[in-house]
């Protein structure tokens, strides 16, 4: 990719990251500060000594801290929906980010406040000050430099967490790196985002350190006597200005994002090729039909369906029939296909052999490990005589359904990771989109590939049952099956992805 292509990705990613991290840090600050102070006050010897409260709060904080963020992200989806009315997008990512950061920051607050000399608490009490006075006039002002340092650390951790926000379509620099760098082998994008992240983290740290220095210098700390006080005023002004301007800017950005009108269709899609096809439609065809598309990119295969079910997005475009049937059954959802669009033919690739004949007894073949893709892969191998499946093996066939391996060994990997394994195995069955991302061409490079005709694995536009007749959906379905889209797919993917139009067979 060229710089002109990377630059908008970076800009958007930067704003998304700033938006998510800014808000979640603010919430973590407001939530973690009282929790941390409470932990100190209710502890043994504290002013509000209360063992049960201390134990419960401590336990909650510890549980919050030990949960891996990605689990929190998924587990909190219902709560997120309750709070911000949606479970996908940058705004939705703020909820788990903030909840993850609150206990983290609370512990840092606790440590900072504990460091304040007990004598000061005593002095304020001796003046007739109550608990609020002690907290607001002694503990917090005294701990301020440590609190700022703690907040800096929290913001940096949040920047790290926000990389996972792509799971719920939150965007941000981290998910740009994952989407383009990891999944699509766009090393230049990955390098650019990583550099951008390093710059941001460094800047945050430097600003945090500078504020801490200003604060301590203002107090006539070591070696600063007489030199610094004059600058304190300026430091405070900058601090206050930043405290006011940054949240306002973030609010403005959030509001700007929220603007939606009736004709806008929100669609959840995988980045490649689904979102690209939709972007083509949006740029070239939708306008004329009076249609506006809001395309949300997801790296995950669960959230697009749950978001469609809950109505947060109007439609999705990323899956095929066997996957959807399984999903509807297991998750009790009611998603229905509308129209087929494309097929990413599964192919068998090898870096060692030039033709199918070279693959045989003793060779290792990598296959995706998820139920539908694995079954699909085994059926492909079966059709071409590399293995023999037991009679009646279904679409979700597994290694256990193989009647005769004909000497082949198998390695099961996550679908996205399979192309990376090509160097280590003799052959691999790779999904079309991942093959394209890895620079492979199903038409030219595959030893064998799936047939497009009558293939149940064609990807379609899907909606919640009952919305099939929404005029906007009908318009989009028509545009996705248009001659222009067909040409676009053929041109752009050169046979790697094939247009498969028409109603979805059952």
């Amino acid at each position: 990719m060229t710089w002109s292509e990377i630059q908008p990705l970076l800009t958007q990613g930067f704003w998304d990251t700033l938006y998510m991290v800014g808000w979640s840090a603010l919430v973590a600050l407001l939530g973690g500060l009282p929790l941390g102070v409470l932990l100190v006050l209710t502890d043994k010897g504290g002013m509000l000594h209360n063992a049960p409260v201390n134990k419960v709060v401590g336990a909650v904080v510890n549980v919050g801290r030990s949960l891996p963020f990605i689990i929190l992200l998924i587990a909190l989806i219902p709560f997120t929906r309750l709070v911000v009315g949606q479970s996908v997008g940058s705004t939705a990512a703020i909820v788990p980010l903030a909840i993850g950061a609150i206990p983290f920051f609370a512990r840092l607050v606790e440590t900072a406040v504990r460091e304040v000399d007990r004598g000061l608490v005593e002095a304020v009490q001796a003046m007739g000050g109550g608990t609020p006075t002690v907290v607001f006039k002694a503990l917090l002002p005294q701990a301020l430099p440590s609190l700022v340092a703690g907040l800096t650390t929290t913001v940096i951790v949040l920047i790290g967490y926000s990389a996972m926000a792509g799971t719920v379509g939150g965007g941000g620099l981290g998910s740009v790196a994952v989407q383009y760098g990891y999944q699509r082998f766009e090393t230049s994008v990955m390098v650019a985002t990583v550099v951008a992240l390093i710059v941001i983290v460094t800047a945050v740290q430097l600003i945090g350190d500078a504020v801490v220095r200003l604060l301590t210098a203002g107090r006539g700390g070591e070696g600063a006597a007489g030199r610094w006080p004059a600058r304190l005023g300026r430091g405070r002004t900058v601090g206050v200005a930043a405290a006011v301007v940054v949240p306002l800017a973030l609010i403005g950005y959030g509001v700007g994002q929220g603007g939606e009108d009736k004709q806008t269709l929100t669609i959840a899609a995988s980045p490649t090729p689904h979102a690209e096809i939709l972007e083509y439609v949006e740029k070239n065809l939708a306008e004329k039909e009076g249609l506006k598309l809001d395309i949300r990119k997801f790296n995950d295969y669960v959230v697009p369906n749950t978001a469609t079910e809950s109505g947060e997005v109007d439609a999705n475009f990323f899956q095929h029939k066997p996957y959807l049937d399984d999903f509807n059954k297991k998750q009790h959802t009611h998603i229905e296909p509308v129209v087929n669009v494309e097929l990413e033919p599964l192919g068998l690739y090898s870096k060692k052999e030039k033709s199918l004949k070279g693959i045989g007894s003793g060779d290792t073949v990598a296959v995706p490990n998820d139920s539908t893709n694995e079954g699909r892969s085994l059926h492909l191998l079966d059709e071409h005589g590399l293995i023999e499946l037991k009679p009646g093996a279904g679409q979700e066939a597994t290694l256990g359904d193989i009647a005769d391996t004909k000497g082949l060994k198998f390695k099961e990997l996550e679908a996205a990771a399979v192309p990376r394994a090509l160097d280590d195995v003799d052959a691999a069955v790779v999904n079309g989109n991942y093959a394209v991302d890895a620079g492979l061409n199903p038409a030219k490079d595959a030893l064998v590939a799936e047939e497009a005709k009558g293939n149940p694995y064609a990807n379609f536009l899907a909606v919640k049952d009952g919305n099939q007749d929404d005029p906007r959906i009908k318009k989009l379905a028509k545009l996705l099956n248009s001659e222009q889209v067909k040409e676009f797919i053929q041109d752009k993917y050169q046979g790697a992805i094939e247009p498969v139009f028409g109603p979805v067979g059952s």
Partner: protein
Amino acid sequence: MITTKDLTKVYRTRDREVTALDGVDLHVHEGEVFGVVGQSGAGKSSLIRCVNLLERPTSGTVTVDGQELTALAGNGKRAGKELRAARGRIGMVFQHFNLLSSRSVLGNVELPLEILGHSGQERTRKAHELLDLVGLADKAKAYPAQLSGGQKQRVGIARALAGDPKVLLSDEATSALDPETTRSVLQLLRDLKEQLGLTVLLITHEMDVVKAVCDSAALMKNGRITESGTVPELLATPGSELARELFPVGGVPSAPGRTVVDVTFHGETTTEPVISKLSRTYNVDISILGAAMDTVAGKQVGRMRIELPGSFEDNVVPIGFLREQGLTVDVAAVARDDAPDTGKTDAADSAAGLVKEGAK
């Protein structure tokens, strides 16, 4: 002004109980500087912290300026509104100053005024006034980290005076200061007491502090007050440990068969004429072995160890003369033939103990 009745404080830790105060009855009169001395762990800090209820006594009562503080509401470590208001009228000065490093000197003195609810302007005016009083008018804008120990303690004193207290509590306020600074801070306390009519309860382990500023003193041992009274009263008490510590006299007889007596001056008589009068009247050679004289509360007080020729029986008349002059005369153990040596060693040891304590 400050009265405690049968004050007891028991600290309970998981595995044991420590009785820090064991039935303390303390009476501090209005307008006096009252010093409490005692070895480390005697319970001095516990006592002073119980006076403003920073530590809630296990039993007993505390009355300050006619108000029974122990009767005021408060549960556990939380103080009720009335108790907080009462604390606002009692100033407290700490060994380690306990100034907020996040506030300027002025800000530190304003803090109690903020708690008392004074308006901004009023606060600043009053804080400047207080800083003026302790001689730090020019340091208002400085931060505590930029001050010397003595200056910090002056700020601490200014802060303690913010609520116009009638009572000032001081726990080892000069222990972290060098002797020179200690003297000037004590002088300040003394001046403020005169100027503002303060009653001061101060804790110290330095006898010099008591000598320099205290009108009255008490000795604490194992959570109990073993001696208490005005300094002259203590001096007049035969065998007073405090008097001995305050005015230690040394010196051993120049030859056996002589009588050594310790003479205590309470401030009514002057030193020289009595001794020379004795010498002239009875024609005896008196040699002074050692003396510790000082001005306590404006009066000449102290003790002197003198040696008279001959045995105790030979000196009954001169000693009677000294007693007639209103002086306390103890026959020192060192010269008494019948006194066992251990008696002397005990006294010396305990004096040494206190000196060591003071050096800590």
